[in-house]
């Protein structure tokens, strides 16, 4: 069981709700994934666009809503976005993300740390999307973040755990939960993250952009169960060749 800020989660798979071909597909994928936390975003409202209530059906699934601050380019904008999200949704949970770099979508560590400190002081439960930098993650923990969310690879890239070596250090050093977020491209990436000891993973593009998002969501569900169980069972360590069957007294005559 995973605990983040006094809330428990059975599932270690969190879902990003973006990029799905339809709201219905997203909701069906969320249900198939067994996830218990789904991210949402804020956008400027425009008259005449028509409304779609995402929140009610997600709450009916029993998931924790996690609004994000995507679009914020500075700490000030991120803090404002978080306050707007809290007002719109009535939750103090916030996925803090500040990525002014439009090409690689990498997070701004200075602005993220500054905004995290402010938001924690204002009573938010802060889950920061961050670089896979162990020292930076320790600083985010120090200012009171409820978890850290280091990236495996750039957002939407499906490149897997490119930052594996750093993730292992982060997992070793942090007391708060470590949620690998961004770049997970395959169920095996998610399983690997959990086998390494990560507490959870957040997946969006790999599921939403699949030819069959609902099936892929289910595959990720199974992968996360496998990774979690493997870690708990205790993984064998790599080493030299060691026979698993007896190699003697079979073809030789017994004496």
């Amino acid at each position, binding site marked *: 069981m995973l605990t983040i800020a006094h809330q428990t989660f059975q599932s270690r798979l969190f879902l*990003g*709700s*973006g*990029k*799905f071909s339809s*709201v219905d597909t*997203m909701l069906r994928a969320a249900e198939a994934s067994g996830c218990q936390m789904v*991210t*949402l*975003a*804020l*956008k*400027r*409202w*425009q*008259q005449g666009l028509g*409304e779609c*209530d*995402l*929140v009610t059906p997600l709450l009916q699934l029993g998931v924790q809503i996690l*609004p*994000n601050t*995507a679009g914020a380019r500075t700490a000030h904008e991120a803090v*404002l976005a978080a*306050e*707007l*999200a809290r*007002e*719109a*949704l009535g939750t103090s949970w916030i996925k803090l993300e500040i990525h002014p770099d439009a090409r690689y979508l990498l997070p701004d560590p200075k602005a993220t740390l500054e905004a995290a400190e402010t938001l924690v002081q204002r009573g938010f439960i802060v889950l920061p999307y961050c670089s896979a930098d162990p020292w930076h993650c320790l600083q985010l923990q120090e200012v009171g973040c409820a978890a850290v969310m280091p990236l495996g690879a750039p*957002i939407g890239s499906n490149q897997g755990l490119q930052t594996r070596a750093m993730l292992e250090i982060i997992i070793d050093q942090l007391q708060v939960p470590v949620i690998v977020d961004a770049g997970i491209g395959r169920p095996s990436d998610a399983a690997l993250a959990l086998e390494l000891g990560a507490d959870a993973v*957040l997946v*969006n*593009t790999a599921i939403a952009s699949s030819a069959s998002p609902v099936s892929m969501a289910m595959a990720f569900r199974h992968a996360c169960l496998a990774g979690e169980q493997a870690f708990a069972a205790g993984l064998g360590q790599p080493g030299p060749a060691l026979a698993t069957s007896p190699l003697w007294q079979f073809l030789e005559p017994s004496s």
Partner: protein
Amino acid sequence: MFYLNDAPLPLTASTVAELADQQAWPLQGIAVSVNQQVVPRRHWSELVIKPHDRLHVFHIVAGG
């Protein structure tokens, strides 16, 4: 004149609540800031929109 999501508009509504009615804002999943300060829904009927005020209205959408 005031600004709504950076677009200039004539000042025809006196409060944020009136503006919400005029524009048919959704009933939930909405947040408003006036001059970069978030205004909770319970204050919409009290908050008078003044000339040159900059309002931003946001709604909840899908996103990772």
